């Protein structure tokens, strides 16, 4: 029997992560680019920016598939391997069924500059730590795969690309990727540049690279 439980101010359940309802203030700007104002070549270049971020360990380590096992990859980990300690985030993607992510990745009540300074400690942010939805599997996937996935409403939470770009600015776990602390390598570019890249890619008609 699996129960629903509460942790902090968030409701954690097997099939639902109700913490998305938290009210957060957008910190970046959603810049519009008129349709047709961005060439195909520029659109593909913009996609490449997003892909470099999506495939970076700060992002891809938690964008895993139905194994539900977060990954440890990137310069700070050396060899690529699943998260240590036999951690599985389970079907809930937040570990309710075994060890909740928040058991170690404790949810901060207030932002803190020094919460993640020590290497090898579990990162902490002001939102419950969690895997990305299973539909957003990125780890080890090609640029073409992720490109087609991201614009597929069935796999992107029924969002427009503007919705996706806006969503990025409201996710505290995601924002941590640019300020990871410890000895972790930051995701490339900046969140503002990624949002702009997505919007330019959209204005270019969401072109995808071939395999």
């Amino acid at each position, binding site marked *: 029997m699996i129960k629903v439980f509460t*942790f902090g101010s968030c409701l954690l359940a097997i099939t639902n992560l109700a913490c998305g309802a938290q009210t957060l203030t957008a910190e970046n700007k959603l810049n519009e680019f008129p349709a047709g104002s961005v060439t195909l070549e520029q659109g593909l270049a913009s996609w490449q920016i997003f892909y470099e971020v999506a495939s970076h360990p700060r992002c891809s380590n938690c964008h895993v598939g139905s194994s539900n096992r977060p990954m440890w990859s990137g310069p700070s980990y050396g060899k690529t391997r699943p998260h240590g300690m*036999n951690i599985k985030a389970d079907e809930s993607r937040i570990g309710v069924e075994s060890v909740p992510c*928040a058991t*170690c990745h404790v949810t901060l*009540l207030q932002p*803190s500059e020094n919460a993640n300074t020590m290497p090898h400690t579990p990162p*902490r942010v002001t939102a419950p730590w969690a895997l990305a939805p299973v539909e957003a599997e990125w780890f080890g996937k090609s640029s073409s795969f992720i490109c087609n996935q991201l614009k597929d409403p069935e796999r992107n939470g029924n969002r427009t690309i503007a919705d996706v770009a806006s969503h990025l600015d409201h996710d505290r776990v995601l924002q941590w990727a640019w300020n990871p602390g410890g000895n972790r390598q930051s995701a490339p570019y900046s969140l503002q540049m990624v949002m702009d890249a997505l919007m330019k890619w959209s204005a270019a008609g969401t072109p995808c690279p071939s395999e």
Partner: protein
Amino acid sequence: MQITVNGNQHEIDVEDDMPLLWILRDELGITGPKYGCGIAQCGACTVHVEGIAVRSCQVRAADIDGEITTIEGLGQPDALHAVQSAWVEHQVAQCGYCQSGQIMQAASFLDQNDDPSDEEIDSAMSSNLCRCGTYPRIRKAVKTAAENLRSA
């Protein structure tokens, strides 16, 4: 600030970033939770916040969000928690240093799943290290505790 530990309210005057483990052991003298690694890699400091297992070395004072239960408050000598009883029955402990964390982890896990498979037990308990290697007895004790909880 005020915190509630094992049903008792305490007024504490600490820095915002003092880990809960330090508060429990050094400020309140509650020494069941143990210091092992300080970086959430061993589980010896596990306590409950609102019934959920957390590594108290990672919970800063500013982030305490609910009632805390330590091994001292899980059961009493004359009324042990089902997990504690199972631990005694299977004589799980060897040196014992990690065991309060193991028991708190198991109790929180069984509160979510009172009929776990061996694989589920291993999944839930693998992040609590035991240098004595009592893992086979831990798994047996968790199964016994689950049976007792279901029949309670």
